[in-house]
């Protein structure tokens, strides 16, 4: 039997939690969780409000919009502070009836 070999180096290097970056990432995670909770609570309404093709953007814990273009999305993201910008969630809305086979 042939050995399975990764084609890309994928060694895992755990990072020290005392690294200051760890607290920044935790803050983003907390803000992102608020955005996700908001999305999951309003998922059906948001999917109806922003039909595809577009990207649904959830930000500031309780705000949502549908962006058709990348530039439009970046323009909005640039108005947010660093943590909220990193924590803003993108959900892709394909055209109606599209089927994914990834």
């Amino acid at each position, binding site marked *: 039997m042939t050995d399975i070999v*990764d*084609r*890309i*180096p*994928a*060694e*895992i*290097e*755990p*990072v020290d*939690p005392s690294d200051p*970056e*760890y607290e*920044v*990432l*935790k803050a*983003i*995670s*907390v803000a*992102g*969780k608020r*955005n*996700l909770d908001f999305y*999951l609570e309003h*998922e*059906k309404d948001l*999917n*109806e409000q922003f039909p*595809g*093709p577009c*990207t649904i953007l959830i930000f500031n814990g309780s705000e949502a919009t549908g962006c058709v273009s*990348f530039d439009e*999305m*970046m323009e909005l*993201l640039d108005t947010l502070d660093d943590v909220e*910008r*990193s*924590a*803003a*969630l*993108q*959900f*892709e*809305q*394909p*055209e*109606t*009836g*599209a*089927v*994914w*086979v*990834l």
Partner: protein
Amino acid sequence: MSRQFPGFFRDFGVTSHSQLVVTARPRVDVIVSFGRGRLQLPFLIDTGADFTVLQPDHAARLLRDSGQSVPEARRADYLTINGIGSSSERTIVRRVGLFFSDEDGEGYWFSQSILFADAASGRPWRVPSILGRDVLRRFDLNLSYDPPSVTLTLNK
């Protein structure tokens, strides 16, 4: 000792065909860091994907925040990925930090090389970024539709 990292299902609510059963898609939130850029992404869990792939908009967001861009990569860096049928896309390999939050809000953070899809390769992808087996292999993946549950467990 084990740590659990909860995921979620995203309903897509559109019936493609009256005879097809619509099934929610398993997701997990992960923060990807690259240089000065940090981005929280609801990855699609894809056990059929060899590698983790940032879709072009996500890659472009992260590269822009980090002060880099895909076109600056040398052509030799490109790696082609293949999907269903004849579809293929250009990617580059970049080492990133991946930050998972457990059920208590504490993080698990490690660095790994993943694929960035080329934002300049054409029409937008209306699909999520994909968490492939290169990352999933670190976890005990539990996926249940009845009852609905998505959990990555780190056994140490």
